[in-house]
């Protein structure tokens, strides 16, 4: 059994009296696509921020890419990529400039940047748009570029925070093709989503309710466990029991 790339044990984060993340324990294996589900306010974002090294936990253990979240959060940042639900490219820079900027802050050399930028523009078929401002592109394209930029420096893990919000079904499908491709190349994908069809695409899914992990299994396993025909039903059964609302 290989070493897990993310490992948490009783991980807890409190804000005052409020327990945002309540003693969660799970492991993610290298190359896995791990779906991190939960209603709004369930504590997904807080947990993700801890794993990205942005927030330190109140108690419990967590290890990301072999580094401890308490002491080595700067090391963790070098090993991960991140794409958020909010739009994460600069609108008044061109596609090429965005790629070069984000590559640049991850310390890629000039030559590396040039090569990777060209490969990426090739792959996305953006020859005509490479020198256009990102603000002028449709949302679906921006999200694809965003994702490509997040994995440009070959991170061990990429964290995707509701990456397909507001995107049409066809683009979402294409987006998931890109995610599979990345996973195939050995990048672990940690993704939050509100789309239950996307949850079916994941290797394993965890569902958070009120700060704790209420269920964790493969989509097939979860459906069997909750006697449901699809992930929607599984999610609703669990989320209905939630005490915290928005």
């Amino acid at each position, binding site marked *: 059994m290989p070493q897990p790339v993310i490992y948490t044990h009783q991980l807890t984060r409190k804000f005052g009296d409020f327990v945002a993340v309540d003693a969660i324990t799970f492991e993610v294996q290298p190359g896995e696509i791990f779906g991190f589900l939960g209603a709004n306010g369930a504590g997904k974002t807080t947990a993700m921020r801890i794993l*990205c*090294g*942005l*927030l*330190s936990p109140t108690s419990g253990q967590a290890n990301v890419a072999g580094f401890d979240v308490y002491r080595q959060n*700067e090391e963790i*940042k*070098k090993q*991960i990529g*991140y*794409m*958020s*639900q*909010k*739009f*994460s*490219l*600069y*609108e*008044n*820079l061109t596609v090429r*400039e965005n790629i*070069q*900027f*984000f*590559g*640049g*802050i*991850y*310390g890629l*050399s000039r030559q590396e940047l040039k090569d990777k930028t060209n490969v990426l523009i090739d792959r996305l078929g953006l020859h005509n748009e490479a020198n256009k*401002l990102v603000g002028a592109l449709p949302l679906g394209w921006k999200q694809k570029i965003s994702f490509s930029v997040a994995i440009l420096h070959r991170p061990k893990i990429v*964290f995707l925070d509701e990456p397909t919000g507001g995107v049409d079904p066809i683009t979402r499908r294409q987006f998931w093709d890109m995610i599979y491709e990345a996973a195939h190349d050995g990048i672990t994908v940690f993704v939050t989503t509100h789309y239950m069809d996307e949850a079916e695409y994941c290797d394993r899914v965890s569902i958070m309710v009120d700060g704790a992990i209420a269920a964790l299994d493969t989509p097939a396993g979860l459906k069997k466990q909750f006697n449901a025909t699809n992930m929607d039903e599984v999610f609703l059964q669990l989320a209905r029991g939630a005490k915290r609302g928005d």
Partner: protein
Amino acid sequence: MKTFFAFIQKEFRHVLRDKRSLVILFGLPVVMMILFGFALSSEVKNSNVAILDYAQDDASRLLIDRIDQSQYFSVHQKLHSEAEIEQVFRKGQVRLVVIFPQNFQQDLLHSNHVQVRLVGDASDPNTSNIVINYASSIFRDYQNELSNNKKLPYSIETETRMLYNPQLKSSYNFVPGVMTLILMLLGAMMTSVSIVKEKEMGTMEILLVSPMRPLLVVLSKAIPYMVLCFIDVAIILLLAVFLLEMPIRGSLFLLLAESLLFILTTLSLGLLVSSVVDSQQTAMFFSLVGFLMPALVFSGFMFPIENMPLPLRIMSNIVPTKWYYSIVRAIMVKGLGFSYVIKQTLILVGMTVFFLGIAIRKFKIRLA
């Protein structure tokens, strides 16, 4: 270092592509300099004067000519009765009415005493004061010419010398003022807005999960604005020297060094604001009300601090613009060296360290 360079390049692109910030950065100083230089001059030139001449003799005519020839006045019309005085003021046609009494020349030469009445429009008190002064000096000159050969007993003559600015040019006052205002506004506002913008857009999060140290993220956002503010200093000084013909009497190097220090002060204020607020609007409002207003009121540029009540005088000391303004005037206008501005410099250094310290602390707390 590479990441730092990538960041600065990106920041410059942001600014150079955003027409609004370009206009503010480079348009504002130029417009302000030209406005203050030509439109908002506190010197009063070519005021219209009405004359009510009861005397109609040689002396009164000579004086009327002199008034008309002076660069400060032009004789607009002649009146024929006291009743018309009020009318011309009501219509706002003239700023001053000069009334010569009957037998003006005769009384002047024989009884050694004669009164000329000057009537000003004090609905604008400053201007009418200045106008009356100019007019009185024309009469004084004439009187001196007459009494040239005769020495008056017991006369005290005041010989006035206006040091540093003999022509009383208003540019000596406003160039340092404009520099102070522009740097305060741009340094604090542009930096805070640009950082808060990244928070709003969500890109700040991406930057924070990158391996760049958070402190470096914030500092590298401030550096391009430091360069841009410095360019503004250069623009203002060039306009002052070549367009308004105002000399820089002291050391240019010292002036630039002090300006750099003040830019740092304003940038650290901008960082402080951005660590507290979350929206661009709030950041802008904060900078305008929190910094520009006190800068206008308490720098001594528009209102003399000496005339303020004690609590306000004490308050003026915590406004950084006051100190920079006094430094610029000392160097540019009086030509003083570093030893004369040590106190102000130290105060600015202290303020910068203080603001920067709080900003960094606040920033760290947010991340924890």
